[in-house]
């Protein structure tokens, strides 16, 4: 935070040429892995993330199973080659915490009561990181769940908003995340009109939080449309082959 880095160009554009409320280019593909029950791949700017889902299957060891619903197990992991310097492949404190946060963000959507005594495994593997990986990972994970055929109440899309040089920004990249004043990841479900993830790091006033939240909701609605298109694309391939 102490270092001064120019996050904006003279014409007011961000370091990667985007406007303040502009998302990075997003590419989503569903059903990329044949061994997993469901999978999805997302590229958001320079982020590259793959998500895979296994289950529902019998919960082992049996004592972890719940009699009235299934358990969600989530693993968020950054590959050793995902950062500019090698990252240890062992799960770090941050990764363990994010795994829990993402599980909590997905759980309200999954109809867990339909599969009592079972477990669903969700793997989120970050192949290349450039800020906002938890949000992109969550966007991919929910698509992997839908691809696996697991009943969901709806899809959730996530996007980070924040503040840098006193300006509210949408979809922060690594530079803005590190040198900005605040960072607030938001996961929003347009069907239920509910937020399943809201974190904040840094300082923003009440008005700024409200403004950031409304920008985040607009951005996640755009992402939700992309998710729907990616899912339709995945299942309409069968029709085109005919």
């Amino acid at each position, binding site marked *: 935070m102490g270092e001064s880095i120019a996050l904006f160009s003279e014409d007011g554009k961000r370091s990667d040429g985007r406007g303040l409320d502009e998302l990075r280019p997003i590419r989503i593909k569903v059903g990329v892995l044949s061994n997993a029950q*469901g999978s999805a791949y997302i590229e958001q700017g320079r982020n590259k993330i793959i998500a895979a889902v296994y*289950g*529902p*299957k*019998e919960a082992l060891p049996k004592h972890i199973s719940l*009699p009235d619903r*299934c358990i969600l197990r989530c693993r968020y992991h950054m590959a050793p080659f995902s950062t500019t310097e090698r990252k240890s492949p062992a799960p770090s404190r941050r990764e363990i915490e994010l795994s829990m946060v993402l599980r909590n963000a997905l759980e309200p*959507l999954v*109809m867990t009561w339909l*599969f*009592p*005594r*079972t477990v669903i495994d969700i793997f989120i593997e970050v192949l290349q990181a450039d800020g906002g990986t938890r949000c992109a990972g969550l966007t991919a994970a929910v698509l992997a769940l*839908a*691809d*696996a*055929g*697991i*009943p*969901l*109440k*709806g*899809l959730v899309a996530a996007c980070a908003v924040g503040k840098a040089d006193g300006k509210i920004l949408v979809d922060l990249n690594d530079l803005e995340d590190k040198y900005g004043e605040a960072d607030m990841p938001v996961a929003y*479900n*347009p*069907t*239920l009109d509910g937020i399943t993830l809201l974190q904040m790091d840094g300082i923003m006033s009440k008005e700024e939080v409200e403004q950031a939240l409304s920008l985040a909701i607009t951005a996640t609605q755009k992402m939700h449309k992309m*998710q*729907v298109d990616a*899912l*339709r694309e*995945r*299942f*309409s391939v*069968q*029709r085109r*082959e*005919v």
Partner: protein
Amino acid sequence: MLRSNEQQQRQRPIVVPGEYVGDSKFHIPGLNVYRLSDRMLATTVGLVRIDGKRVDVVALKSFYQPKVGDLVVGIVKEPGTAGWTVDINSPFLAFLPLSEYPEKRIRLSRDSIGRILEAGTVLVGLIKDASIFSSPVITLKGKGLGVVSNGFLLSITASKVPRLIGKKGSMLSTIEKGANVKLTVGQNGRLIVHSEDLNVVMKVKEVIGMIEKESHVYGLTERVEALLAGRRP
């Protein structure tokens, strides 16, 4: 009527979880649909089917949910103390108790359970008990049930089994006649081809693949018949 339904299905878009499929004033939620205040929403990726007031979403990928009376093809996973756990291609493992094994006299002192039915044995069973509180129970007592000693095992998504069987078994008999083979289809998406001829098995596999991919596209029966007759559909 069937054709017009199929034509309707062909034109219908694919719905995704959370997508609006009907209004609670006019519809009641069916398969893979839930109600949120006055809206009916899909829970899985699939195609909408409206039958009177009932709205269903026919899933394009689904799991087998055991129901009492279903014929299933299972694979013995593990012998236990009072029976076997059986993989029935479902999130839930089924249990085959010793009492549901057709052999009248089993001397446990002499025969270990693992020797009667080894892990990996393929069997055709009937779901005897299924509830959300306990594992489904299967039985091997009944006509046409028991251990499968030869044949080939194929699989299809569980939601496509009704299409594979067809109305009153029409699609199944078309395949059986066309390929000149006997098939046993489990509701859990596994089927046994009772043949030693690899060419026949490959032909059936091709047909199954076609049904799985194109079950929602108009004119499937004609294409299956053409494929079985050796013409490219």
